[in-house]
């Protein structure tokens, strides 16, 4: 068998995927397998009993948002009676930051990989402060969610309907040249997004006050583009999944309890999991390492696709996360070349002479060298609803890569 060939195929599919942000629509209308009582969440599948605080909070919030429960107590007892179902976003072509909860009525971004035809989805980004993705579900959180769904979501949907879509691969490539790494820093990408979407919104929103409110919301949130970017990365990595004989990692995701990966040449729902680690990083004033929840969110799909921490060399503004100097940032990216199969054809870094970002994590290299992927991440408070307490760096447990290697060898009789 020729693993290198298979990996080349998978890496090419990943790089050549061309994710276009096509539309905003209601989840139940577009996400495959979406049901009214189904709640998608970040990371590998997990049952309620093992869910961490932020994820539980987000699910309660989503149930309140859907109106199927009137209070958190009712929501909890419904869950315990088994009246709702959970599944990993990844089983439905979806991704979400932090808790990553997506419910049937939520508006979602729809990204189409026009090269290979697969579609991916992500929810709308809520911005900072108390937000559902960190497990908050107070009235103001739900109020904002409703506004996002009704006003922002509608405006985006109408705006995108006016266009042929937004080329996210080009957007990411440009943002990487403007100091973003596409995961923890999306300032530049969000502004590019604002630039592209503004004229469209101006066309479709008739009410000046609403138009202003919508544009303000998108512009104020330096993470506005994170969710479309994540969906783009999901479309790319899904295109690379299912290549027979490939050892490339096509998913890295965390649900706040477990860290899980999937591998291209292994099963669609074959996860390798181990307890998620607590990220190390810098904390907002008043918070410390003790407040941090174990690693959570699907945003590590960015690293899986070759940006985020892998593109650290191009984001000197956030070097404090990795040690403090631009050289540390450079070293972070150089380290990731050690475990990747390819260098991106489209995402390049000026500081490395326009070298392509490290792309396509090769299971074999991770195990051989004992270097696990770096992931830039926001840090959630361990209690539901408190929100983000910091940002930093985390790595998946080495064990899940070793387990995947053994499973790969078994499947292919090596």
């Amino acid at each position: 068998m020729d693993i290198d060939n298979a990996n080349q195929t998978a890496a090419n599919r990943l790089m050549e995927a061309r994710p276009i942000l096509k539309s905003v629509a209601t989840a139940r209308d577009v996400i495959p397998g979406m049901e009214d009582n189904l709640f998608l969440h970040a990371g590998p599948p997990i049952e309620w009993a093992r869910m961490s605080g932020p994820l539980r909070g987000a699910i309660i919030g989503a149930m309140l948002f859907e109106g199927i429960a009137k209070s958190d107590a009712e929501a909890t007892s419904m869950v315990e009676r088994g009246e709702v179902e959970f599944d990993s976003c990844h089983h439905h072509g979806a991704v979400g930051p932090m808790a990553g909860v997506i419910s049937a009525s939520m508006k979602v971004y729809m990204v189409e990989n026009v090269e290979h035809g697969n579609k991916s989805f992500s929810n709308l980004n809520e911005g900072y402060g108390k937000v559902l993705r960190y497990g908050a579900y107070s009235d103001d959180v739900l109020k904002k969610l409703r506004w996002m769904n009704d006003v922002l979501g509608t405006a985006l949907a109408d705006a995108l309907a006016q266009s042929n879509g937004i080329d996210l691969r080009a957007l990411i490539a440009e943002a990487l040249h403007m100091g973003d790494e596409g995961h923890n820093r999306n300032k530049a990408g969000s502004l590019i997004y604002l630039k592209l979407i503004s004229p469209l919104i101006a066309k479709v929103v008739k009410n000046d006050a609403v138009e202003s409110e919508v544009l303000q919301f998108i512009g104020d949130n330096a993470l506005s583009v994170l969710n479309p970017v994540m969906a783009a990365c999901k479309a790319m990595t899904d295109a690379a999944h299912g290549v027979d004989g490939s050892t490339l990692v096509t998913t890295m995701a965390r649900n706040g309890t477990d860290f899980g990966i999937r591998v291209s040449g292994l099963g669609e729902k074959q996860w390798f999991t181990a307890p998620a680690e607590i990220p190390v990083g810098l904390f907002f004033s008043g918070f410390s390492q003790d407040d941090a929840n174990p690693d959570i969110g699907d945003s590590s799909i960015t690293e899986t696709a070759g940006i985020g921490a892998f593109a650290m060399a191009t984001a000197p503004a956030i070097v404090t996360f990795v040690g403090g100097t631009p050289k540390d940032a450079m070293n972070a990216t150089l380290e990731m070349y050690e475990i990747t199969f390819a260098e991106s054809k489209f995402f390049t870094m000026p500081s490395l002479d326009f070298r392509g970002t490290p792309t396509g994590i090769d299971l074999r290299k991770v195990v051989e060298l004992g270097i696990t992927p770096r992931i830039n991440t926001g840090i959630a408070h361990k209690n539901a609803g408190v929100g983000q307490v910091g940002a930093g760096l985390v790595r998946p447990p080495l064990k899940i890569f070793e387990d995947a290697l053994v499973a790969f060898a078994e499947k292919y009789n090596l």
Partner: protein
Amino acid sequence: MNVTKFEVRRGAYYDSVVLMQLQRGLIGLPGVLDAGVVMATPANRDLLAANNLLPDSITASPDDLLIVVKAQSDSSASDAINQVESLLAKKRSSISQDFHPRSLSGAAKQLPESSWVLISVPGRYAAGVAREALDLNKHVFLYSDNVSLEDEIALKITAREKGLLVMGPDCGTAIINGIGLGFANRVRRGSIGVVGASGTGLQAVTTHIHNLGKGISHAIGTGGRDLKSEVGAITAHQALDLLARDPETKAIMLISKPPSPDVATDLISAAQVTGKPVIVYFIGYPPPARKIGNLQFAISLSEAAEFAVKAGDQTLRIETIEKSPISSLYVRGLFSGGTLAYETLLGLQASLSPIYSNVPITDSQLLKDPFHSECHTIIDLGDEFFMVGRLHPMLDNDLRIRRLKQEAADPEVGLILFDVVLGEGSHPDPASELVPVVQEVHEQRNEIEFVAIVIGTDEDPQNTQLQIDQLKENGVIVFRTASEAVEYISLRFGAGSKNEFTLINLEQLKQPLAAINVGLESFYESLTLQGAQAVHVDWRPPAGGNEKLASLLARMKK
């Protein structure tokens, strides 16, 4: 009133760059007039004293960090001292390490111009790393020992096919393009190239050459087992060829612990066709002669160095022979003098193989049937085996004449060597009996060469000059010593070695040395100190030493 305050931090080591930055940071603080931050070595303390910064009452050892602040006031001095920690923390974080990749392929990407990989990882991993280096088309300096002979052979065969060198395993020393690899002395560059199967031997000769005022072009280590039969001196042959082709190299030295005889023969043959003076010192191997054509045989490391220095200095006169070589044929030596036979055998065994004799030096050279020559053969016809019921061949040429005819009838024979020992008691006119045989043979086979070693003086009763003249007139090549004859025959037969390997790229070797170091970090440091470009691999055993995973990975390599 100026105040000087100090603090001693026991056993706190900091890099001098950090300390200089700290010092600068302290001087920049309000009220501070001067500051000194040093490891308290005697030299550094002297330096502080010279700047009036060394307090009298100080006890500090070289391992201690000494911080001295001279300020306008007591409080300024104290404040400054109190800020040391935060200044240090700031400086510490601003000094970032160069990236050390953990894989060879990562290092190769980081330094694509690297053409060498130095390997000093534990032996059981070394062959794997070396194989990876060869896959990346890099030469290998393999310092690691405990590499199996099978691995060594396999690595060297691969390297030879690819035109790459594997120096080692257990190769301690090399100098490539003026850069020392492993343990190497700082010697000037020059025109002497060295091939050495012994690390300290290489160090000894290269330093001696330097001390004699000359320098080294390249010194190529082979590892101690290269000259064993199993390996067949693959690396030494490649190195010899490389130095032969290198225009910077004017003289070559070949040094080894005792080589296998067959390997030594091949190597000496190869040395003969380099077209350059080659000084050979095979420790414990009997030198076949002091000089054979372009080869000089030394009897010690220092003598080898001295020979090389002289050879590099002057254009050494190299015997060349116009006639086309007869390397596909055999030599047969028919001696009346036992010692002459032995000396000739000793000389020829270095370059002719296989060679047999009824008076062998090694058991493997024993001729099965003294009456029938095989391959190259040296016969002592004065041996008592032939003497039963006969006169000694110095008196009676009958046996020798019959044997001469017998050898000449063998189509594989190209040269017949014999001695003519004159003097009291010997045959009164041996030429008169030998010349007709030569004539008779030449009537049948004109191409057969006859070589004679004539031992005698102008006062001998046979008239030595007349004997020589008669032989020469009939086409016999005459020498007066065995060593001259050995040299001539070696050159006639030894020139057949041909390159059966992919040539090593000489141009690439001339580029400034760039290398990847896997293993001992001190080798990396020494490379960078010498100004070579280098990347150090932060190597770990594959899969963290987990053998099950490592063997899975080995099966998943491609």
